């Protein structure tokens, strides 16, 4: 999950939690506040009535014909007052919620009951107030609060998300810079413009590190290049000298063969040095990537090239070319070498009557997949892991190879951002897989 999504989600969840808590306790709180308010009012009313009774006496409140009790509701049944006789000695002073049926309507009342003794008679005064309205008001308040909360959450969520997105942008640019490169050489060292201190530090330390890596890579390449270059002249001298001896006519056939053998050894040295030079030159990007051609074109060329040798060894070359897309901006001769090395390697490691299969297809992401497989002698796990390393697969190549061909292939693949991998099993054969761009 991306950081900005994570932050936004957390933000949203914490807001929702606060809102939920608020909504959970709000009815309780409003109810309590309301009751307290009502109770105060009821007490006030009681005092008012008591002061009225003390002024005018109790008689006006007692209806003569009905058995000496008094009841009064206001029209909307909002409030009522009642006064009735009670058993002498009754003492009561309480407030509670009472459900009353009035005109076929159940109404909850907050009722204050109070006993008072006047002229030796005990009465109970009840003052009630309907709860319906205050409850309705409470509900309305809660509705308004809910609406308000929703608006606040949505607005702050959007603004928070935008803010984190903007703030994190430099971080994403830094990760994008790192994701898009296959080697430190491709690293874009232009600084990222940000006001966030941490990102600036991160960017500058990554850039610094990359520069240092790049520097040491360059140094290594330079050394390889210079050594190889310097070896060329003495090699050249030796070669010319031996060739001169051969060309001037050697009488003794045994000497002639020995000189030829020396030339062969020299040739191995030469091809080794050339290979190292080639790798150094590819790694220091001395090759241009300016060619475009359909992939079948190069595969046909390779098969044509390898055919006489394969026929001679009775090895069958099969192909199933299902994706003939055009390779854009590549170096043709390097791509040729890259694939040719693999096919030739298969040829070397496949016995008479074997089979080499060249396949192209496109995968679900519409990438070109090219595989070269054989049913030759295969490799064990260790050999597979060393396959693309210089000098590590010596024992695999018999004869003239220097054991560096697959390292060249890997270097060329890296140079073109082509993924390369190998699958192999001893006795079953080897499969090399290229995934283009």
């Amino acid at each position, binding site marked *: 999950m991306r950081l900005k999504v994570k932050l936004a989600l957390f933000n949203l969840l914490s807001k929702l939690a606060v809102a939920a808590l608020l909504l959970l306790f709000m009815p309780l709180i409003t109810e309590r506040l309301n009751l307290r308010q009502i109770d105060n009012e009821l007490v006030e009313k009681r005092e008012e009535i008591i002061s009225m009774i003390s002024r005018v006496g109790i008689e006006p409140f007692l209806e003569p014909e009905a058995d000496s009790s008094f009841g009064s509701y206001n029209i909307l049944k909002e409030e009522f007052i009642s006064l009735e006789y009670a058993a002498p000695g009754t003492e009561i002073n309480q407030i509670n919620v009472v459900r009353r049926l009035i005109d076929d309507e159940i109404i909850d009342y907050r009722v204050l009951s109070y006993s008072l003794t006047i002229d030796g008679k005990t009465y109970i005064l009840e003052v009630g107030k309907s709860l319906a309205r205050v409850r309705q008001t409470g509900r309305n308040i809660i509705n308004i609060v809910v609406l308000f909360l929703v608006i606040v959450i949505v607005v702050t969520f959007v603004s928070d998300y935008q803010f984190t997105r903007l703030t994190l942008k430099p971080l994403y640019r830094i990760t994008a810079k790192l994701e898009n490169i296959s080697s430190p050489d491709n690293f874009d060292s232009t600084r990222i413009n940000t006001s966030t201190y941490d990102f600036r530090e991160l960017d500058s330390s990554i850039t610094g590190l990359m520069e240092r890596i790049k520097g040491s890579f360059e140094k290594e390449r330079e050394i390889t*290049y210079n050594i190889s*270059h310097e070896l*060329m*002249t003495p*090699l*050249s*001298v*030796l*070669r*010319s*000298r031996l*060739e*001169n001896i*051969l*060309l*001037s006519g050697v009488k003794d*056939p045994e000497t*002639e*063969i020995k000189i*030829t*053998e020396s*030339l*062969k050894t020299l*040739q191995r040295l*030469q*091809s080794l040095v*050339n*290979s190292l*030079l*080639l790798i150094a*030159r590819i790694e220091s990007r*001395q090759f241009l990537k300016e060619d475009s051609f359909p992939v079948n074109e190069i595969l046909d060329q390779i098969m044509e090239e390898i055919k*006489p*040798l394969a026929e*001679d060894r009775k090895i069958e070359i099969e192909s199933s070319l299902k994706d003939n897309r055009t390779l854009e901006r590549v170096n043709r*001769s390097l791509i*040729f*070498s890259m694939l*040719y*090395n693999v096919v*030739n390697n298969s040829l*070397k490691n496949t016995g008479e009557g074997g089979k080499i299969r060249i396949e192209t297809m496109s995968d679900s992401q519409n990438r070109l997949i090219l595989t070269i497989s054989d049913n030759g002698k295969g490799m064990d796990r260790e050999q597979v892991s060393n396959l693309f390393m210089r000098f590590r697969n010596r024992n695999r190549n018999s*004869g*003239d*190879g*220097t054991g*560096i*061909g697959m390292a*060249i292939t890997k270097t060329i693949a890296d140079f073109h951002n082509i993924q390369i991998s190998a699958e192999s099993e001893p006795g079953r054969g080897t499969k090399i897989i290229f995934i283009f761009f």
Partner: protein
Amino acid sequence: MNVLIVEDEKSLAKEISSFLTRENFLVEVAHTGREASEKIAVNLYDFVLLDLGLPDYNGLDLIKEAKKVNPEASFIIITARGAVEDKVKGLDLGADDYLAKPFALVELLSRINAVARRKFKVPDNDIQLGEFTVKINSRRLFCKGAGVDLTKKEFDLLLYLVLNHDKVLTRQQLYEHIWGNILDDQYDSNFIDVHIKNLRKKLNAHAPSPWLETVRGVGYRVTTGEN
């Protein structure tokens, strides 16, 4: 023909010089750019073999200088491999060919001959080998009037052996001539053997080809009996 070898590595210059002398060239050697510049100013050379990696002189300047004094001179640039830009610049300045170190002496000779044929417009004569005729211009091989169907590689191989007739060519020399250097690591002596085997098969279907010899342990040779 007069050849000037400009090469600071003395032992290499010596080998090239003794080889070309044996091939009937008049050879002079200069080990420094200054020396070369003086010689070019005084003498007329048909060929200058120029090592671009001279310590005291920019080899490319030497081409410019020489072209002023003697526009007829042909240049073959010799350089340690890899300097692609040098090659392009050299050819732009009018060098005729380019060879990377280390090269085969026979390859050098065949480049010189090719440049000479181009320059002096020597018609490519048909070459007779037993009952076979190699037509260089049309790149075809005939036997008693009938065409022999060869692949491009087979023809190139045959032609190289024919042009260097009576010399034993090693498999490496043949391989380098035909495939160049890019596939260095994949050099496989079997390649040449297979192609020669196929070539022989095709030749022998028309007429015997005793002139194409295998020199055991060394390589192959075409004998014309001219030498």
